């Protein structure tokens, strides 16, 4: 039952509500160390505000970037993110946000690099369409 509820939430989370200007908001409901979504698609030049709601009793983070960026974060030792666009730490049970502009068409990744989380499957692909 809870899984079904999570699936519904995940679907609802990606019904992107129009925001002021050209920024739209995408809500990511994290549950059981999963973003509830393995793929997202945006348009070139689009600015997106990611609202990450952590329903788990453990910390998570959202890191957006290419493979090299993901590798650096996986091997890095930063314990907190929030200053750079597309990078945010979300404490247990909390909500945090980050805004990112997808400047060029192509493919990026999103994921969580707290110990073991990326390998556990907390990651996905972002496609930026021209």
């Amino acid at each position, binding site marked *: 039952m809870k899984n079904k509820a999570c699936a519904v939430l995940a679907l609802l989370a990606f019904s992107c509500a129009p925001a002021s200007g050209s920024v739209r908001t995408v809500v990511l409901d994290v*549950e*059981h160390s999963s973003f509830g979504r393995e793929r997202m698609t945006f348009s070139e030049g689009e600015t997106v505000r990611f609202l990450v709601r952590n329903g*788990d*009793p*453990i910390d998570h983070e959202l890191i957006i970037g290419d493979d090299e960026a993901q590798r650096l974060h996986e091997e890095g030792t930063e314990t907190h993110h929030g200053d750079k666009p597309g990078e945010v730490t979300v404490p247990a*049970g909390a909500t945090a946000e980050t805004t990112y502009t997808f400047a060029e068409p192509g493919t990026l990744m999103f994921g969580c690099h707290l110990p*073991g989380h990326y*390998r*556990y499957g907390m990651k996905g692909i972002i496609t930026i369409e021209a």
Partner: protein
Amino acid sequence: MKRGSWLGVTAVFLVLVSAGPASACGGLVNPNGTVSLVRTTTMVGYVDGVEHYVTSFEFAGGGAEFGSIVPLPGVPSKVERAGDWTLQRLVEEVQPPVALEDGAEAAATAGSAGAQVLLETRIDALDITILKGGGDEVGRWARENGFSLTPDAPEVLDFYAQRSPVFMAARFDPAAAAADGQNVGDGTPVHLTIPTPNPWVPLRILGLGLGREASVEADVFLLTEGIPEMLPAPAQPSDRDGLLLERSEEAPRALLSDLRSDKGMQWIPASDMWFTYLRIDTTAGALDHDLAIDATGRSDPSPVAAGLATPVRLPDLDDDASFTPWLVAFLVGVGALALSKYAWDRA
């Protein structure tokens, strides 16, 4: 299930889970500590509605605290130090040392994060806390008390909490161990007495934090008054991996006698027991269930207890006082309608 439904049934089972160095019966939740719980061995005995849960924690040394979480089928009425050699004797029963072959026969407070702390006690260098709460609540309590949860912990805690929201958190205090003169490799046995009508053996917790492809190897021993019905049903040893039935036979009287002579183990019957040895050899990803054992004599192990089905939530007549008036009103209404129809028909 009410206690009364077990009348006439004196099923007894005894379970020992002996996990190898790569796994543990409790989920290790602080892998970054310098102390390693190299093996956790657990025995569960069930006699006339009361489960006796015996587990032992061993550590490899170091200077940091280390914790473990074990899901329980009910709230313990007693937590105490167990006998010194019960677990070792059971392991010896199926893994006899070669050198011995010829002579072997011879108070409740609310936690800040919502989890309810039912009991706190110290056994040797182990700080034991019995918790009651949902997966999120227990996870928050663990986090606030210095436990570091692995990424699979939220799902696993929910998996157990929806069937029984009771957990044991055990934390080794190496400074206290040193002060007590404990050496590396020493085990601290713990005995929990748990009244419950629905016993089960937690298996999925063995894979907590290991990764889906990691190997899980463990031994499960059952001692029952009859041949036990289990869910999932074990496979034959020729299948090589999974839950394998290695032995199924009448329990040796010497084993029962030895177990009964250890501290606090007199609840084990002296004779007429059935001995079953199950070997687990699988991966953490495949071990997504527990082991249900039917102790009622109905040959009907519960899919819910095995973790193969989600429990159906119904109003609890004992706890939900608001439900009772509605039920009474409903029954009165149905009765009134029946009487009206009866009167109408007779008229």
